[in-house]
């Protein structure tokens, strides 16, 4: 009996047959004063010990997720003739940035259960546990969160943007936007067949402020009083400087 179960389990797990090997063009992004977004090339290959299986084609899914944070989603309604925030839903955790790139439409490359298990589509990445108690229309708020973030470029769904050659070599380019926040950007690559994940690979991209950006940020958080006084000193000096220059020019 145990032997039969083991056999069935092994038969149901083709993962051993196909493995993903992947790399990134860079695993460190430095935010300097002139930072204007960054392009990450994700590439790799499928390692096999057996011939390519027949049947459903192989699909590749690449995701990059920025640091997660709690957010509040508010909805406006018309009250007394003006539009004001009425209902609000607290979302436990939503990444500041999220991109998912695939070789085929997400619904084809992944079943719903696998999506729930691996948290791949934006709707599954956003975690909201007790939202049903906050509003009767909680799902609308979550859909709106994703829609608003997609509109401003923070969430990207790039279906069929991963190029897969001869079922073996794959690559895709993902743009990190200019309004990037600091943190570790978790990058995952999935191989799927018939909507089932057969192998995955995870790594991180380290996004850090450098130079002047680093100095200003640290001073503001570690020496806030000195930072505030320095800001005022700059303001006063600039005000005086402009006044003095204009007086010279007028003479």
């Amino acid at each position, binding site marked *: 009996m145990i032997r039969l179960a083991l056999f069935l389990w092994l038969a149901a797990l083709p993962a051993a047959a196909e493995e993903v090997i992947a790399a990134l063009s860079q695993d460190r992004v430095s935010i300097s004063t002139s930072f204007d977004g960054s392009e990450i090339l994700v590439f790799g290959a499928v390692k096999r010990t057996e011939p390519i299986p027949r049947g459903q084609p192989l699909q590749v899914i690449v995701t990059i997720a920025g640091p997660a944070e709690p957010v509040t989603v508010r909805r406006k309604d018309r009250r007394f*003739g003006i539009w*004001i925030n009425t209902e609000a839903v607290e979302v436990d955790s939503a990444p500041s940035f999220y991109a998912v790139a695939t070789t085929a439409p997400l619904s084809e490359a992944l079943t719903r259960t696998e999506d729930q298990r691996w948290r791949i589509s934006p709707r599954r990445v956003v975690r909201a546990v007790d939202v049903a108690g906050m509003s009767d229309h909680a799902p609308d708020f979550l859909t709106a969160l994703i829609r608003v973030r997609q509109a401003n470029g923070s969430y990207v769904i790039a279906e069929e943007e991963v190029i897969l050659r001869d079922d073996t070599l794959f690559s895709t380019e993902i743009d990190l936007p200019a309004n990037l926040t600091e943190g570790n950007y978790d990058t995952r690559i999935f191989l799927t067949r018939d909507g089932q994940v057969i192998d995955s690979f995870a790594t991180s991209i380290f996004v850090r402020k450098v130079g002047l950006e680093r100095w200003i940020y640290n001073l503001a958080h570690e020496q806030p009083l000195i930072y505030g006084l320095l800001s005022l000193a700059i303001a006063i000096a600039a*005000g005086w400087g402009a006044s003095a220059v204009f007086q010279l020019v007028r003479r």
Partner: protein
Amino acid sequence: MGHHSLERAAVQIYLPIAEVSVNAFLLLGLGGVVGILSGMFGVGGGFLMTPLLFMIGIPPAVAVATEANQIVASSFSGVLAHVRRKTVDFRMGLVLLAGGLVGAALGVQVFNILRELGQVDLLVRLCYVVFLGVIGSLMFVESLNAIRKARRKGPVQRIVRRQRGWVHALPMKMKFRTSGLYISAIPPFVVGLIVGVLAAVMGVGGGFIMVPAMIYILGMPTKVVVGTSLFQIIFVTAFATLLHATTNYTVDMLLAVLLLVGGVVGAQIGTQIGTRLKAEQLRILLAVMVLAVCGKLASDLLIEPAELYSIGAGAGH
């Protein structure tokens, strides 16, 4: 997105506290335009700049805090120009400032109470619409009448200020030589206090309330009003900057520098323009500007927004 042309990269600047990348020339230009208005009218310009910063994607908390820092610079630049012209009433400024600091402290308390009740956002907006609307309309009508009167009776006509009224019946009289006034210290203190409360609640310097109050309630000459208003705004906004920097860490030095480089130059130009215009022309222009901002904010409240949902920072865990 994704186009990295060289010219764009050259002017884009990443702001360390706001954590967004913006066009440096856009910020210099915004600072310049608001600086001109500031020098002309004696308003800090916060009521204009803060909504503009929201529009280009700066987080609201950073916009309000950094704007306070920038107003310090443009007001200081403007005050120096007015000091040279001897159009600052320091005595009046100090009385207003005393009231202003008390008011600002009270205002912070009021703000916290409103925040606990929720809807602080809406109340701030309504405050803007009501105050800008009332002040703008009153100034517009008054200065229009003044211009008509001046046309009818010839250009030499001076506007007669209302000198006699309840303001002059109060005790604690002080001599304000630069303003040519001998009035009680209570009305300026109370004006400073009310403006201080509103400034703290609305997150601005309060010049657009202060200037008309000085003209119409205190009866100060328009030319002295501008410099005196700027003088007291420096201190109120410096106080606000320090408060924001130490409690919320939301002052963005790089953003402030870009705005104030444009701002201080603009303030100097604005002061030059201001001295060439007639007092009632200056007032009608300020009235039009105040009404325009009021109209924009009112339409935001009345017209159905394209996106009903908005995302804010979480409650924090």
